[in-house]
């Protein structure tokens, strides 16, 4: 067990965990503001990947234009889902919204199966991201570096929106007390739609990074990353954006180290991830960055 082996595992863990974190950020954003666990988050990510895929392969757009368009379209899809599915149950008990989210998740998956067919499709990765760097015996894919940078930038942008804009202030107010916020003249529906737009855009960005890293997309691809992102969000303290990022990184590193150090236990990888979820919910339900509300 030498140093470069361990270092390689940590790098592998960070690159996987960064992706979990990126997806978890959108998850936790919606929860923090609406108290809604958006189980369709992983499926929105899948939709984003297909938008990007069709942009490149059907409309022959350059990859960056296709990715950008995919993020915008997914944000729009997020708004539509909010208007169509969540707005009608906004004042209903929270459990109704949760069940609606599961329904939306199934709807998107099955719609994907009908529209995109169930066979996996190979995803595009720009040539320059496929370069591999070797530093002290540790191999890093350029894509991993860039996706990590993008994750940090996105995190910064989301934190900025929440803390330093009027919209962000309105979001925090809604999280605190929706009724009073409404009385203060804030257009609650518009702010919530915006929240969904940002969350879905982050999901699309995360999905595209995911699909470039693991270049295979299918209509059910969002399920496991969605669940892992949920674990990451809870681990970090659900509702806390920075926590989600940290939770994602931690989960990725734990998973990779477990498999690398105990290859014979590799089959229990998902079980461990979900055991972490149960333990956190039992002993520290507010997660690592434990506050009740998004600060």
């Amino acid at each position, binding site marked *: 067990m030498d140093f470069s082996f361990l270092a390689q595992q940590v790098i592998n863990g960070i690159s996987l965990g960064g992706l979990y974190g990126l997806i978890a950020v959108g998850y936790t954003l919606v929860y923090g503001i609406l108290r809604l666990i958006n189980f369709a988050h992983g499926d929105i990510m899948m939709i984003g990947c297909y938008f990007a895929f069709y942009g490149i392969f059907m409309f022959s757009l350059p990859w960056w234009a296709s990715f950008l368009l995919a993020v915008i379209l997914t944000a729009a899809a997020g708004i539509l889902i909010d208007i169509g599915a969540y707005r009608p149950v906004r004042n209903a008990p929270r459990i109704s919204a949760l069940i609606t989210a599961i329904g939306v998740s199934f709807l998107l998956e099955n719609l994907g199966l009908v529209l995109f067919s169930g066979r996996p499709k*190979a995803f595009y990765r720009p040539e320059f991201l496929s370069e591999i760097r070797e530093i002290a015996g540790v191999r890093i894919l350029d894509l991993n570096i860039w996706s990590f940078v993008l994750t940090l930038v996105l995190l910064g942008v989301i934190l900025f929106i929440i803390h330093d804009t009027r919209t962000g202030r309105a979001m925090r107010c809604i999280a605190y007390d929706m009724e009073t916020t409404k009385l203060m003249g804030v257009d609650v529906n518009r702010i919530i739609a915006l929240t969904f737009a940002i969350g879905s855009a982050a999901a699309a960005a995360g999905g595209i990074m995911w699909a470039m890293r693991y270049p295979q997309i299918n209509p059910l691809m969002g399920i496991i990353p969605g669940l892992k992102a949920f674990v990451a969000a809870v681990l970090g303290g659900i509702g806390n954006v920075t926590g989600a990022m940290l939770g994602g990184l931690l989960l990725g590193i734990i998973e990779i180290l477990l498999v690398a150090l105990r290859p014979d236990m590799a089959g229990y*990888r998902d079980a461990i991830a979900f055991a972490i979820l149960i333990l956190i919910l039992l002993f520290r339900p507010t997660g690592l960055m434990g506050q009740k509300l998004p600060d």
Partner: protein
Amino acid sequence: MKSVKLSVAFVLIALLVASFSGPAFAQAGDAVRIGVFLPMTGGVASYGQMEWAGIQMANRMKPRVLGRPVELILVDEKSDRIEAANAVDRLISRNRVHAIIGTATSSNTMAATPIAEKARIPIISPTATDPRVTQNRKYTFRVCFIDPFQGEVAARFAFNSLKARRAALLIDRAQDYCVDLANFFRNNFTKMGGKIVQTTYCQTGDQDFTAQISAIMATRPDILYLPNYYAEDALICKQAAELGMRIPIMSADGAQAPELIKIGGKAVEGFLLTGHFEKEGAATKLAKQYIRNYEGKFKMEASGFDALGADAYFVLLNAMERAKSVEGPRVRAALAKTRKFEGVSGVINIGEDGNAVKSMVILQVKNGKFRYLATVNP
């Protein structure tokens, strides 16, 4: 007014009942119903779609049996074993099929056979290769070879042709097929004097294998055996190349899907596998006819999974003809006496145990295509 409503309701109920129980009034001269359950969606959708294309092609080439038209009824098992069991239940109780073809994978076939056994409806799997599929079964058959043969051929090839002595295994432990096939490889390879230096696992649907690959590389094997399905294998090869692994990778029939090459790209060049059929190695008259028809209609190259779908259909119809009946027990008896049937994928013999005895091909990916290397006879 009330009586009008009542009679309308009565008519509606009658129609409903009739639509459900229609097949019960079936008579000779009506269609022979063959139920097909395959993974048309989900993790192994490629298998289902290829096999369904093969079955449809075979149906076009031979649309009648015993003077009756054949009707195919397809149910999607969604790559899920509970759905597979439900699919067979539905085919038997609602569609009242005479025989069933399906499904592509071993675990899902095993989940479904008890229902067909109970109803005494013959069930033929095109590609479930795990030996346990037909064990203690009377009505379950298959038109593919079984995994002990496959594991043995792979081990011999690795040991003799590739001169490998240290092998590593990365096994999808969610699939009976993968776990059992890995064992057959391991037993044969170690018996010949080889050593298994690393055994690690993944699960169907996993996408990140970097940790497993690093752990494998740390033990310095000279071959990696992947007894898994194409989606996992493609991603494993891709990540292995990124992590700098440079040893030969060998797999089995589950890897022979176009997606392996589409997703794997350059990373699967040189990838070896044991498979059912490759058109360059096609020998029978039916195969040539089938390849021409198939490629004309689907504009795709015929390959292992569609050929075996077609064979399941041809073998079943052949048994019905010899039995001169579509009744389950009689078709079953005829199936168990399938001798020297010249199918698409070669000459098929089926024994009382339900297993097919037939030859195997070794393939390699070259320039983005599966290329035929050799045929191995049992």
